[in-house]
């Protein structure tokens, strides 16, 4: 039990339609979150296409903890901790590479890319086999892969990945369905955008349909973007609670109303003929048209993977008031004409200099400074409480600009925090 549990219960900090400001600023809350969320629940780590070849590895993270994602020579993916089991030196320096083994620079212990201790210099100083067997690298105990997305959980047991994803797994299905080859290639590299803000500011903003017209009006006005209207009062788009803290801005009702293939991406089929032909060949013309109308999902998978149509964001907390947002472009394996456009649009929109994300980030940091004020103590999440309803699958939905997602995030957050106390 942490000091937070002792002093004030989570039910006192998190109500249905408002949350206490200290949740963003209290270092004790942050420490409790690391244990109860980041080092327990399923966290997205990386994608199999980041380590395509046997013996490839890349350094990723779970919360503030660096994690080596390696592919062994049999092709299996491992999540290893970057800490020599001797006296804790880092065993891996490079951000990525190809190697069957990692050699610690301090005293030369060598580990295979499956984590096994292969050997140490000056053998006679240890009593042989025993030590070798016990002293493999630390590992993330549970690793599961869905549609190429690698998730890790530091908990030895608990819900499976599919149980954790629940109905939100469909977001990954929809994302991958837009790739004619059925595969994604996430090897364009990640921008790392640092902000002085609590990680939950980012999670809440990803599916906040209320802010785009205000925060992004500068780029919408000069680039003649239609995105703003998707998040207006008249929009038929929905905000949705997908369960387990996963949330969505479902723009399909608008795209179906507008009925313009690839309108979701702001383009038309004649601009990407190669892609359209591939999608039709893979799915038939009718199904391909449906896919091109519905477009790509806008779903935040709690706690750290945001699927934003043509981008993937990964949220990484570093401290109570410091967070890194990693972002890369979605690329469909084998569809160069579409990929070029998605990459260039992504580069323009996101990251430290992006037309969109620089302004979102400014909001996170302003929120973080604001929430330190003593009064009022609460953050208000009431929007649309009077018009919440259930959809055909039993999920709570609201209008495009409603705070259904934010309430959903906090509801799940509270259940995780209470479960750990």
């Amino acid at each position: 039990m942490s000091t937070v549990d002792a002093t004030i219960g989570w039910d006192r900090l998190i109500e249905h339609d408002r949350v206490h400001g200290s949740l963003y600023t209290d270092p004790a809350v942050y420490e409790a979150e690391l244990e109860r969320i980041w080092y327990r629940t399923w966290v997205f780590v990386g994608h199999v296409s980041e380590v395509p070849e046997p013996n490839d590895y890349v350094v990723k993270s779970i919360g503030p903890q660096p994690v080596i994602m390696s592919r062994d020579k049999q092709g299996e993916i491992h999540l290893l901790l970057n800490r020599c089991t001797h006296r804790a030196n880092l065993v891996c320096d490079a951000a990525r590479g190809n190697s069957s083994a990692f050699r610690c620079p301090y005293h030369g212990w060598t580990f295979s890319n499956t984590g096994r201790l292969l050997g140490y210099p000056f053998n006679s100083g240890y009593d042989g086999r025993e030590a070798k067997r016990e002293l493999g690298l630390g590992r993330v105990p549970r690793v599961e892969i869905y549609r190429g997305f690698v998730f890790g959980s530091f908990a030895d047991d608990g819900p499976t990945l599919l149980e954790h994803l629940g109905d939100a797994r469909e977001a990954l299905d929809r994302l991958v369905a837009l790739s004619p080859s059925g595969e994604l290639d996430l090897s364009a590299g990640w921008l790392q955008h640092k902000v002085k803000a609590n990680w939950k500011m980012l999670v809440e903003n990803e599916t906040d349909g209320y802010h785009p017209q205000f925060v992004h009006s500068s780029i919408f006005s000069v680039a003649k973007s239609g995105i703003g209207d998707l998040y207006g009062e008249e929009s038929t788009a929905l905000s949705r609670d997908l369960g387990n803290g996963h949330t969505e801005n479902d723009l399909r009702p608008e795209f179906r109303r507008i009925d313009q293939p690839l309108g979701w991406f702001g383009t038309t089929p004649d601009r990407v003929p190669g892609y359209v032909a591939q999608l039709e060949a893979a799915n038939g013309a009718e199904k391909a048209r449906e896919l091109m109308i519905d477009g790509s999902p806008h779903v935040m998978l709690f706690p750290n993977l945001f699927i934003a149509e043509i981008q993937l964001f990964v949220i990484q907390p570093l401290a109570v008031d410091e967070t890194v947002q990693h972002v890369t472009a979605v690329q469909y394996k084998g569809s160069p004409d579409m990929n070029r456009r998605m990459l260039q649009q992504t580069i323009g929109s996101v990251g430290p200099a992006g037309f969109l994300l620089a302004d979102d980030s400014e909001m996170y940091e302003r929120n973080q400074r604001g929430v330190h004020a003593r009064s009022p103590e609460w953050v208000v999440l009431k929007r649309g409480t009077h018009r919440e309803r259930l959809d055909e699958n039993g999920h709570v939905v609201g209008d495009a600009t409603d705070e259904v997602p934010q309430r959903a995030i906090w509801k799940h957050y509270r259940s995780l925090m209470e479960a750990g106390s």
Partner: protein
Amino acid sequence: MSALPLNLDRLLEVQQFVYREARLQDEHDYDGWEALWADDATYWVPANGDAIDPTREMSIIFDNRSRIATRVKQLKTGKRHAQAPPSRTRRVVSNVELLADDGEELLVGANFAVYESRERGLTVWAGRSTYRLRPTGDGLLMAYKKVELVDNDRAIYTLAFLI
């Protein structure tokens, strides 16, 4: 790269250009800065190293001329929140070196350090710029600018002022 025969006038012209660009950036003279670009310009700030392929990999900025115009227009709305209010910046540009001259364009290298002050605090940005400058009847124009930040492979704060 071996040194070019020294053409002092040329070097001075290049230096003055690079310093002027720095001042226009620091003083948020967006129109003045945009006027330095040629019509077919490329403005590139790579990420994850300096030698990536921007047509296949993520960059921090990879603007063609029309995207440079969009960037300037966005700043000029006054509602580019990441620059409203604008950062206070001052930069030092040094090691200006004329690297090549093929008769059409001058290849120029320079190092920089930028001090950016915002509500968040003081952020230091450092790196090297490579320019391709095109002599025209109206003086030099930037056909290409590549900015290699020393920390482009690490997490960095918002970079919404002109770098």
